[in-house]
């Protein structure tokens, strides 16, 4: 639209647009474009975001599509730009073009969870897939033993997104370190549907009886997998790992159904992200580097009761 495009050149750097965009912080308007409007883990991020907004007196909008959809997210970002929001937080599913649109309009963008390469975002702040992979490797070797060849099956929410592939590739790379031999025998999709996740795991264990490592890269997949493993009574033979720390997942870890889950601070995806943008707009501060790990940790029986503080540490700029 004409307005924003004409605004773009003059207000290219966030710092310079703080004064023009009427200093009093309470007028600030942040938009959080999440990949899923109401998904349990992202609701943790919402919690953090809302928290930060109330603390800073920012008016924050939490938006997102009903089911995963890059177009929808792109649309929402364009809407935010049209609304002349002061800052946008979003996630790696969004294609580059709309983000460029925002940055050109002088709106600082902070990317969480998974990165959007080659757009000049203020910062990326999220899960480091390599750390995640390493954590998984260590845990798996601990349970299955270093000398046992690993046959692994992975379940992701949906395979047609870059993130899924980054995570899988990272895992493959990390597990090369497992000298006894490693193979990804099967990859399945949960389509964010716990029922589908369940049936997929049932079939996987039937089709590939020799699978001894089950990695779930979608929040709902972990519990589903654990249930199947329990039903089939192959608990001690197969190591099961999930991601994120929703209630059921944690319970299963306590009960031993899940051997562990890789969690990042979704809370900080909201809380810290909002703070960084606020500090950037009001004080012109920028993070030292673009890529930041949000603190990726492995939760197991041992630390399940006391991990949470580890995820709530807030780093100021």
């Amino acid at each position, binding site marked *: 639209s004409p307005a924003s495009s004409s605004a773009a050149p003059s207000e290219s750097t966030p710092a310079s647009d703080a004064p023009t965009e009427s200093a009093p912080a309470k007028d600030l308007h942040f938009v959080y474009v999440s990949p899923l409007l109401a998904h349990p883990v992202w609701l943790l991020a919402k919690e953090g975001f809302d928290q930060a907004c109330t603390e800073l007196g920012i008016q924050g909008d939490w938006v997102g599509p009903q089911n995963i959809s890059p177009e929808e997210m792109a649309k929402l970002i364009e809407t935010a730009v049209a609304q002349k929001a002061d800052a946008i937080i979003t996630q790696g599913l969004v294609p580059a073009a709309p983000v460029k649109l925002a940055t050109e309009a002088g709106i600082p963008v902070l990317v969480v969870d998974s990165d959007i390469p080659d757009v000049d975002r203020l910062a990326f702040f999220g899960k480091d897939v390599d750390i995640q992979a390493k954590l998984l490797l260590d845990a798996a070797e601990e349970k299955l033993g270093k000398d046992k060849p690993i046959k692994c099956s992975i379940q992701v929410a949906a395979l047609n997104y870059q993130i899924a592939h980054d995570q899988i590739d990272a895992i493959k790379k990390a597990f090369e370190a497992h000298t006894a031999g490693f193979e990804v025998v099967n990859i399945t*999709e949960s389509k*964010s*549907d716990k*029922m589908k996740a369940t049936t*997929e795991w049932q*079939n*996987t264990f039937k*089709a590939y009886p020799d699978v001894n490592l089950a990695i779930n890269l979608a929040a*709902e997949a972990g519990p589903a997998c654990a249930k199947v493993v329990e039903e089939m009574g192959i608990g001690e033979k197969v190591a099961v790992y999930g991601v994120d720390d929703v209630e059921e997942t944690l*319970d299963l870890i306590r009960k031993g159904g899940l051997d562990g889950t890789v969690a990042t601070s979704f809370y900080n995806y909201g809380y810290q992200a909002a703070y960084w943008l606020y500090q950037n707009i009001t004080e012109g501060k920028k993070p030292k580097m673009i890529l930041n790990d949000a603190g990726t940790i492995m939760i197991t029986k041992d630390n399940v009761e006391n991990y949470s503080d580890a995820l709530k540490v807030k780093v100021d700029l």
Partner: protein
Amino acid sequence: MSNQLQEKKKSSLESKFRWFIQKQESSIILATILYMAVVTCVNPVFISSGNLFNVLKTMGYTLITVVGMSFILITGGLDLSVGSVLALGGVITGMACKAGIPVAFAILLGVLTGVLIGFINGFIIVKAGIPPLIVTLGMQYVARGLVSVLTQGVPIYPLPDGLMKIDQLKILHIPMVVIVALAIAAIGHILLAYAPFGRAIYALGGNEEAARISGINTRLTKMMVYVITSTLAALAGIFMSARLGSAEAAAGTGYELTVICGAIIGGISTFGGMGSIVGATIGAFFMEVLTNSLTLMRISVYWQNLVVGVILVLAVLLDQYKRNIILKNSIKAKD
């Protein structure tokens, strides 16, 4: 003498076969058998009782609703809201349980929600004469909305063992949900084939005007089919949450398509007036086998969609092919 007898036998067998082929369900039955054979060849595990029970069980969750959907489709209608209703049913029951209401009542509550929603659907469709597609699409959003308002997006967890039981229960190794589903299908079949209500449904789909003028209460009938369907969807939802051990806010997304597709693959006409529950049941089973088989046949995820699509079309093409054959033969037969 004896070979006369033999001939009799042969001919009677032949006639039986004729009769079977003539039956409209036969083609989907054949398709299913054929496909199952193929899958078994690729991976014998498929035919293992363990796996078949799995297939049956997962089919159960669909079949329950397919029965109702078939009713609706035969009246010439459509219901897109079943997916959300499924979720809602599960959630309501789940919350009721957590609120300490005894399981039985909680279940009743969930089912009643279904009744209510079905009633609203039917009411708007009948009274306002709005296309079912829009009404039920609206309801899809509304029901899903209720779910997220109630759950705030967080799954209802944990559920009391009492609830989980209804899914784990088995009667001679057959999971509860399968028994319930088949029972519902049986009742549905009897209703449709032998009860005035069923006749009304067919008449409605075939020619609403004529049905009305013949003194059939078309409005009530329409109403009923929507109520029945939503109720069944809610029931399916309760079973599903019992199976998953948690009532998911996102449960049943895309469920409506599976259900409708199952019914239609089973020979229910999209234009109304034709089809049978037997067909629909087998259709639902076929769909389940299809999705179940892919991983078993070790087909890469990337190819699965392609395969599903092709097989779907082939399955219906078979039906077409059969009809042609019959036509040809019947014309020959008379020469």
